[in-house]
């Protein structure tokens, strides 16, 4: 199956401080049905940046064959990516990995979607698909501070949305875990993506729940061949078992891997 294409950029915009919204088109979008999967981007064809960059699928318009990604301008690759213009092309591999299981939540149940920083984007496509399936969604989205907040309206349109900032400059102040407790949010399933400390806190606090966590790790190949992105398996006494974030993940059920 062909999994690589030159995507054409339709739109690229700054939506928060250092946060870009990138929309591209390609027939490959037809395969992008699973929220939580990621794309592997070759920023340009020059040879100084060899590795691809993994970026989550944030939204897909299957009919118009477009996919939207949100990314933070961070290092060399994302900086260069942010200079691309509509009409330019990007060599993209994907969709890759295993996304969030929609079927884990039944119609009528409540799903709590917890995102942190640049872990927020994949939750948007997830939320859209869950609501389409008749699931009630609640969002708790953590950001560093006010200038980093994005997609508040988009999430609010789908369900109740709490914005949390570390410094309290916008929305609630503190950690997402605090807010879930303070607001006494109840839910049937939790889906989360964000920095590892946040995932750890959630895995500890909600170990007994239906919880799915999306992990981040530096990648080489993105396809399962290089063993760059492995993590240990919980309870493995031999210490030789592993899961690959790129192909076994990035989404894992609670308790499967060591964070």
């Amino acid at each position, binding site marked *: 199956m062909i999994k690589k294409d030159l995507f054409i950029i339709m739109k690229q915009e700054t939506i928060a401080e250092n946060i870009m919204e990138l929309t591209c088109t390609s027939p490959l979008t037809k395969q992008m049905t699973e929220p939580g999967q990621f794309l592997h981007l070759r920023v340009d064809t020059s040879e100084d940046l060899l590795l691809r960059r993994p970026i989550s699928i944030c939204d897909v318009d299957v009919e118009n064959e477009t996919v939207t990604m949100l990314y933070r301008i961070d290092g060399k690759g994302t900086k260069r990516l942010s200079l691309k213009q509509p009409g330019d092309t990007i060599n993209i591999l994907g969709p890759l990995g295993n996304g969030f299981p929609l079927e884990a939540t039944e119609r009528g149940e409540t799903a709590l979607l917890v995102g942190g920083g640049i872990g927020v984007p994949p939750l948007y496509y997830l939320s859209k698909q869950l609501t389409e399936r008749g699931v009630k969604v609640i969002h708790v989205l953590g950001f560093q501070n006010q200038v980093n907040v994005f997609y508040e309206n988009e999430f609010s349109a789908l369900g109740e949305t709490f914005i949390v900032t570390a410094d309290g400059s916008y929305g609630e102040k503190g950690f997402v875990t605090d807010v879930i407790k303070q607001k006494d949010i109840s839910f049937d399933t939790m889906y989360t993506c964000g920095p590892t400390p946040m995932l750890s806190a959630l895995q500890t606090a909600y170990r007994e729940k239906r919880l799915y966590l999306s992990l981040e790790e*530096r990648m080489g190949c993105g*396809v399962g061949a290089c063993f*760059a992105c492995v993590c240990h398996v919980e309870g493995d006494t031999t210490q030789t078992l592993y899961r690959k974030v790129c192909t076994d993940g990035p989404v894992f059920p609670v308790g499967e891997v060591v964070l």
Partner: protein
Amino acid sequence: MSRLRVELPGLSMRNPVMPASGCFGFGKEYANYFDLELLGAIAIKATTAEARFGNPTPRVAETTAGMLNAIGLQNPGLTGVMQNELPWLNQYNVPIVANVAGTEIDDYVETTAKLSQVENVHAIELNISCPNVKQGGIAFGTIPHVAAELTREVKNVSAVPVYVKLSPNVADIVEIAKAVEAAGADGLSMINTLLGMRIDLKKRKPILANGYGGLSGPAIKPVAIRMIHQVSQAVEIPIIGMGGIQTAEDVVEFMLAGASAVAVGTANFTDPYACPTIINDLTQILDDLEVESVKDLIGGAGKNATSTHNGTRFR
């Protein structure tokens, strides 16, 4: 297609291109992208006697035109490779080069003795960049007599030809090459990665959890070409060349330098279709260069480089 065919000890290759060890897993993943029978051979991930998890993550870091890796030889161990990986690969008619690693000579011997018996293993590739526990951690590949001894012991038990994969982190690669040739190596693979490091400025610590890692990719290509050129003039056994190959032009450059076949590593990560693309482009380049067969390229750059005794020169 016979324009691309090359014959090396144990390896009858339909073209001179194989994926490099550690950069292609055991083939399964890339089989989702293309037909593995397009390849000249496949060098599978290093096998050690016991299963290994490897190093903590992060295990890779990007560098300018290169990457660092410190995977730590993660692999399912001899039993796992023999039970799960090689049988699966047997569905493809493509010679397998089994890369072998260890920390003591006995490890290598044990692993080779068994792996080399497997039907589709056509050659063993000895990764001698590993630290020798008995020598206080000094890599097998940096001391000629140690490398030779390892080669000799492994040759004794191997049912198939043995390629010794040289480490570039030495002052005199020719000396090592000659030593392993004298010890019975059937061929050489070169080069393995250069030892490197990157530091995270904000965290003030190495990007790799392991600290140091192996540098691969186009950045190291000129070092690989030089070493292959030096060694190919000093030994009679064939060389599988590698280090930064990205394009069919690069393959030609390696063969002109003295390689009889090549391996493609990091490029697989940049593009999962790298190997078939390179193979596909090779014929066109032969036409452009008015060369009938890839075999005619081997060593074509001649001996006209200033000879150096010791990997360094008067600049």
